[in-house]
Each structure stands twice: as structure tokens, then as C-alpha cells.
């Protein structure tokens, strides 16, 4: 039978965004496989808003999504571990993490909720400030900062920053008008929101980065079970292709950000191990502590993640 699957994501469509491209690759691959399966891509929140995708997915209203998992942490607080400061250090580390006990636990929760992972993807990010380079915790003291996600907010507040929550689309205006001094977000957002026009210094992800976010491609289990064996295999093969593509692109995103910022005359730095450890210490006292105490199984998750070297 001919099946058309709806794939939704929040990123710009057809403009070379890596996550859009991952979904588009899958659509092209399953089309080539000729198994009566078609993927219709709805980019840029044209079907569901970013945070609505999870609910629609587990209800079987949405078939496929490229989804920042932390967005569903209101329903599954454990997902906050996938946007936890310092848990992932660099891209190689992220890849080792994918097959760890930690991710097994996370994927178990995803499956129990009614979805499953087709392809893994971890995106890196960094810090930028209008005032100074942010490498040590002391550097952010007193700066009004917009952070992505509560775990980062807790750590930054612990380092003495003043937290201001706003939509990521408001960061540029916030910086320009002086409402914001600093922000931390993904490499892609730093470029697409043109923050290089506003900041003095960028802390890019190098050997030691704090900001990593898990943004896998998910499929609804209801959808999956409706597909025949051939279609499932074709989808899985397509997912492998898409994952391979991502592995090649993930670091390029960071390189592109560094290029763009340098060209715009922004100072670019990275953290060393010592600076990373100083942040990790604060994270352990703030976000990790909060997560371990408040989230069922949280303590074990953190331990399992930290165990991945």
C-alpha cells in the first residue's frame, strides 16, 4: 500500500539547514527505495510549532520529526539530561555517548512514551557576550544572559549571571537594544540570528564545550507499526544515510560559525580543560544537583553520562 508520512521540524526548509537536510535525505532515500513510502516534509513549524511536535508524535498525528528532545522535558523531565551543561564535551564524545547506558535509558523513555529514534544527532553551541570573552565562570558575573533551557539557566545563575528568558528570535534585538549582555545557544542559531553583528567575543566549541543538545530524528511508534517490513527496512537504511551525513556536517557547523564571526571581526576563543572543570564544578552544585534531586532516576542518568569518557 502507498503510505505518505508527515515529517515536521522547526528549521528553515530548503536553505541548507543540517537538520532539514537530514529529513530531506531520508525523504529522497525512501523514495528511491520504491517501497510505496513517501515522506512529506513540513519545515519551519508550518505544521506544528516546535514544542507541539512531541505531543502530536506520540499521539500518532505526526509521523516523523527532527526534534530537540529537551523540548519535551515538561512531560519527561529526564530529557533535560540531553541539554545538560558539560555532559557532552565534544563531537567525538557525543558519538561515544550515543551507544552508552545513558542513551539507552533515554531511548527507553522515548519508546515507552510512544516514539523511537531513527537517527542520532548532537548539535554544539557556545557563548557570546557584548562585554568580554566567557571562558571562566567569573567572566559572566553580572551579565544579563539568555540561556537555552533551565539546566543552563541554573548553572549560569550559579555563576552569578542575571537570567532573562526570551524567545531565541528576540536575542538579536535584545542584544542590540542592550537588554541582553550575553547568550548561549547553538552554533547554527549564532549564525542564522546574525549575532556576530552584536557581540565582542565568541566562545566556540573546541575540545571542551559546555553546550550540546540532542536533536534526533524520531518516528511515531503507531506509524512504525503500520509499515510493512520492506518499508521499515528502507526507512532504517535511509536513517543510516542521514546519520552519516550528519556525522560529516556536525563539526562544519561550528567551523562555519567561527569563520563568520572572525570575518565580522569578533574575537573567537575556546575553553581549555581547566576552565571546563571550573564550570563543571558549578554545574554539579546547581543543575546536576537539582536534576538528581527532582527527577526520578536523575542521579543515575548523570552518573551514567559522566562515566562515558
Amino acid at each position, binding site marked *: 500500500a502507498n503510505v505518505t508520512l508527515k515529517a515536521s521540524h522547526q528549521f528553515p526548509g530548503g536553505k541548507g539547514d543540517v537538520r532539514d537536510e537530514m529529513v530531506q535525505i531520508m525523504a529522497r532515500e525512501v523514495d528511491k527505495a520504491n517501497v510505496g513510502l513517501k515522506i512529506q516534509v513540513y519545515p519551519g513549524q508550518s505544521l506544528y510549532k516546535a514544542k507541539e511536535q512531541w505531543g502530536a508524535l506520540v499521539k500518532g498525528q505526526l509521523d516523523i520529526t527532527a526534534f530537540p528532545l529537551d523540548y519535551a522535558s515538561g512531560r519527561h523531565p529526564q530529557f533535560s539530561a540531553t541539554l545538560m551543561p558539560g555532559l557532552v564535551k565534544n563531537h567525538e564524545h557525543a558519538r561515544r555517548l550515543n551507544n552508552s547506558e545513558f542513551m539507552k535509558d533515554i531511548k527507553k523513555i522515548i519508546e515507552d512514551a510512544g516514539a523511537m529514534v531513527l537517527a542520532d544527532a548532537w548539535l554544539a553551541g557556545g557563548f557570546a557576550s557584548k562585554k568580554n570573552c566567557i571562558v571562566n565562570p567569573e567572566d559572566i558575573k553580572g551579565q544579563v544572559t539568555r540561556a537555552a533551557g533551565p539546566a543552563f539557566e541554573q548553572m549560569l545563575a550559579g555563576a552569578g549571571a542575571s537570567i532573562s528568558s*526570551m524567545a531565541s528570535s528576540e536575542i538579536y534585538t535584545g542584544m542590540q537594544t542592550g537588554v541582553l549582555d550575553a547568550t548561549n545557544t547553538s552554533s547554527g542559531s549564532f549564525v542564522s540570528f546574525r549575532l556576530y553583528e552584536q557581540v565582542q567575543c565568541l566562545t566556540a566549541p573546541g575540545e571542551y564545550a559546555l553546550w550540546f543538545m540532542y536533536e534526533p530524528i524520531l518516528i511515531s511508534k503507531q506509524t512504525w507499526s503500520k509499515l510493512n517490513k520492506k518499508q521499515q527496512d528502507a526507512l532504517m537504511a535511509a536513517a543510516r544515510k542521514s546519520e552519516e551525513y550528519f556525522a560529516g556536517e556536525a563539526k562544519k557547523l561550528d567551523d562555519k560559525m567561527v569563520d563568520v564571526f572572525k570575518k565580522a571581526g569578533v574575537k573567537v576563543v575556546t575553553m581549555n580543560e581547566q576552565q571546563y572543570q571550573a564550570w563543571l564544578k558549578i554545574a554539579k552544585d546547581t543543575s546536576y544537583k537539582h536534576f538528581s534531586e527532582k527527577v526520578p532516576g536523575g542521579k543515575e542518568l548523570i552518573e551514567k553520562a559522566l562515566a562515558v569518557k
Partner: protein
Amino acid sequence: MDSFVRLVRATSMLCGILAVAALLAAVVVVCQMVVMRYFLGASTVWQTEFVTFAIVAATFIGAPYVLLHKGHVNVDLVPFYIPHRARLVLALFASGVSLVFCLVLAWYSWVYFHEAWTGGWTTETVWALPLWIPLLPLPIGMALLALQYVADILCLATGRDAPFGMRAEEAE
């Protein structure tokens, strides 16, 4: 029946007062947030969500009150130019269609509220507000809106209210 209509209208009126209170709270908290953030340099954790949800609550809870005062804007061009009897039929149709929408929405938003309640869902912020709290006004507001429509339909059918507020002689 009169007492039913009176009771519904009193409830809708009460909804109006609650909606105004929510709006007032939102104004006060926005100002508090601005003072905290820009003048005292303090972190603002809960204000953005509070204000957003207060306005949402004002909207859903205020909906029956706005209907009570015929404030949901419509295009009443056709009703204006047709004979009075047809106008009555059209008014009943319009209210009936709206009633169906409110009932469907009330039911499915109740389901959503219930999921959030039993699942212990929260908002994805440091505040982590239990999601059922901001969701509650939706099923309640829509149910009361449906009730106000039932009262309106009764009043239309029994000639208490003129369809689209237009009296018979205006047509001629």
C-alpha cells in the same frame, strides 16, 4: 427556564470579572518584571510565563462574558438584508454551529487538561509550573461558553432575543 437563563448570564458576568482580574494581574506583573530586570538587575524566572498564562486565562474565561455582550465580531451583512423569519433561522444556525464548536473544543481540551494532570506535566522552565494550572481555564471557559450559547439559543427560539439584535420592522 427564566431562572436557567438568569443563572447562565450571572455566570458569564462572573467570568467577565475574573477575566478583568487576570488582565489586571498581568499588567501588574509585567511592570514588576521590568522593574526587577532593568532597574534592580535581578533574575526574572516566573514572570514571563505568569503573564502569558494570565492573558490566556483572561481570553478563555472571558469568552462567555464577551458572548453575553455579543462582542464576538461577525459579518452580519446577509442577516441585515433578509426577511425576519429567515433571519431567525440563520441566527439559530449560527448559534448552533458555534455551540458544536464549543462543545467539541471543551471536550478535547478537557482530555488535554486531564493528560497534563495525570502525567504530572510541567512547563519546560526553571519555574516548572504544573501544566494543568494554565490549561484549566480552557475547558472551563469553553464549557461555560457552550452554556451561554444554549441560553442564547433558548432566548432566540422563544422570542426573548431578536436574531442578530435586529427587530422585525428593520427589515422592511
